């Protein structure tokens, strides 16, 4: 039996971690993740989990300790935000390169300077090509559900890759929402016993992790790692199918909202998708065929599937909560552009940068963008391909 509760995103994910009961967790506090791991630390102190909690002096050390623990043969989790993820950067590639199934909620936060602690996707976007799988979450329920599914995806014997679960700092991490918890036993059975692969602590079968690989072999290992990424989408869908059986909640590689017959559409990640859906309903009521696509599996990016879902539209705006300085367009825009590039007939694509450093994304912003898209769809003319919205001149 599931239980309906009113909790914050951080509380929900901390509860998922309690239900999963990892062997090791090495974490360092950083706003807005702090409250998640503080709650988890209480579970450890209160004996609610058997997790070995390692307190470290930095996020670089947190990820290093996670890597060591995962290589040793344990089920491992940690969590971070913004600059904490940036400090882990070097070790992120070590975790994925060693194919260690570490699970890490990332409570999305901006990067300094200027110093800012609020919701922004610059952190996870900076780590999008680190070889980690990324699942993005619109709300507390999705963050909780993604956290549970992440262990199954990461630990799948065909995959063995680390997974980030992204949720918006403060907007989701600190707001109270209605969500449904699964039973402890249901989660335990769903996640199952941890299966080790080449554990360092198996002294009967000694192994070495992290050898020097010179130009004669490095490329073969990278090619093999790239191949694993091609298998992730199927595993994500299979795990989602199993998850639907225990929760009744359906997940795919991405979510479409009123998109099938749409002429104009928004592509947007995480919490702002919720706001946008309301505005899309208003436009539909006015007779304007608007729709939305919200990526869930952002890495590996399901280019083909997303291209198929968007190709029939006349005009699409990709909204990025992070800018890619000097790259002309935001990171999500570049992926969406790549996904429709091969089609002869494709929508006109524009890019808006919104919500940086926790700036509110309001329904009016979605309205302005949808009106602009309607105009582009009618005339075929674009004034500006990329611009910031919600910014003072």
């Amino acid at each position, binding site marked *: 039996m599931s239980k309906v509760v009113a909790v914050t995103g951080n509380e929900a994910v901390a509860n998922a971690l309690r239900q999963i009961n990892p062997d090791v967790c090495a974490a360092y506090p950083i706003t807005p993740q702090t409250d998640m791991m503080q709650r988890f630390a209480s579970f450890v102190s209160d004996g609610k989990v058997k997790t070995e909690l390692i307190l470290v002096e930095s996020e670089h050390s947190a990820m290093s300790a996670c890597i060591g623990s995962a290589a040793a043969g344990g089920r491992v989790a940690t969590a971070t935000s913004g600059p904490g993820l940036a400090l882990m950067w070097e070790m992120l590639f070590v975790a994925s390169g060693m194919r260690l199934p570490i699970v890490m909620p990332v409570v999305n936060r901006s990067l300094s300077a200027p110093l800012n602690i609020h919701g922004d996707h610059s952190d996870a976007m900076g780590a999008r090509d680190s070889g980690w799988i990324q699942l993005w979450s619109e709300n507390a329920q999705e963050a909780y559900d993604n956290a549970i599914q992440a262990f199954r995806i990461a630990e799948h014997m065909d995959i063995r890759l680390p997974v980030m679960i992204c949720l918006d700092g403060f907007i989701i991490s600190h707001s109270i929402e209605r969500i449904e918890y699964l039973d402890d036993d249901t989660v335990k059975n769903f996640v199952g016993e941890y299966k080790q692969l080449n554990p360092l602590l198996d002294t009967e079968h000694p*192994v070495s992790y992290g050898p020097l690989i010179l130009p004669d072999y490095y490329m*073969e290992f990278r090619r093999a790692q790239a191949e694993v990424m091609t298998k992730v989408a199927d595993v994500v869908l299979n795990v989602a199918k199993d998850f639907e059986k225990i929760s009744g909640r359906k997940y795919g590689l991405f979510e479409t909202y009123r998109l099938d017959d749409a002429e104009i559409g928004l592509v947007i990640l995480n919490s702002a998708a919720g706001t946008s859906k309301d505005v899309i309903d208003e436009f539909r009521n006015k007779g304007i065929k608007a729709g939305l696509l919200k990526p869930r599996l952002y890495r590996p990016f399901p280019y083909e599937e997303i291209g198929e879902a968007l190709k029939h539209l006349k005009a699409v705006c990709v909204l990025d909560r992070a800018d890619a300085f000097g790259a002309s367009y935001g990171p999500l825009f570049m992926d969406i552009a790549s996904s429709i590039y091969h089609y002869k007939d494709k929508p006109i694509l524009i890019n808006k940068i919104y919500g940086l450093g926790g700036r509110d994304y309001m329904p009016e912003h979605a309205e302005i963008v949808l009106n602009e898209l309607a105009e582009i769809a009618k005339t075929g003319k674009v004034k500006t391909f990329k611009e910031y919205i919600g910014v003072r001149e």
Partner: protein
Amino acid sequence: MKLKGWKEVTPGAVITEAGSALKFKTGSWRVFKPKWIPENCIQCMFCWIYCPDMAVKVKDGKRAEFDYDYCKGCGICALECPGKKGNKAIVMEEEGG
């Protein structure tokens, strides 16, 4: 030896064969080669202690010849060698010289 293709390498570059470092003959990295001069050797074993690899061999408790399969030619042994009456028992010579 035929090199493996990408489908044959172990996931995460994990080495599952114990002691396989023996197969990695790092002696080819050497630019300078240590030369042992037994008549100047006082059997202090400093070279054996200081060698960062295991390239100084010992036989029956006595200093034996270098293992040139693994000696990278770092020269630490020659630096540490006290020699006999000011004459070094290990000197570095240019490889192939």
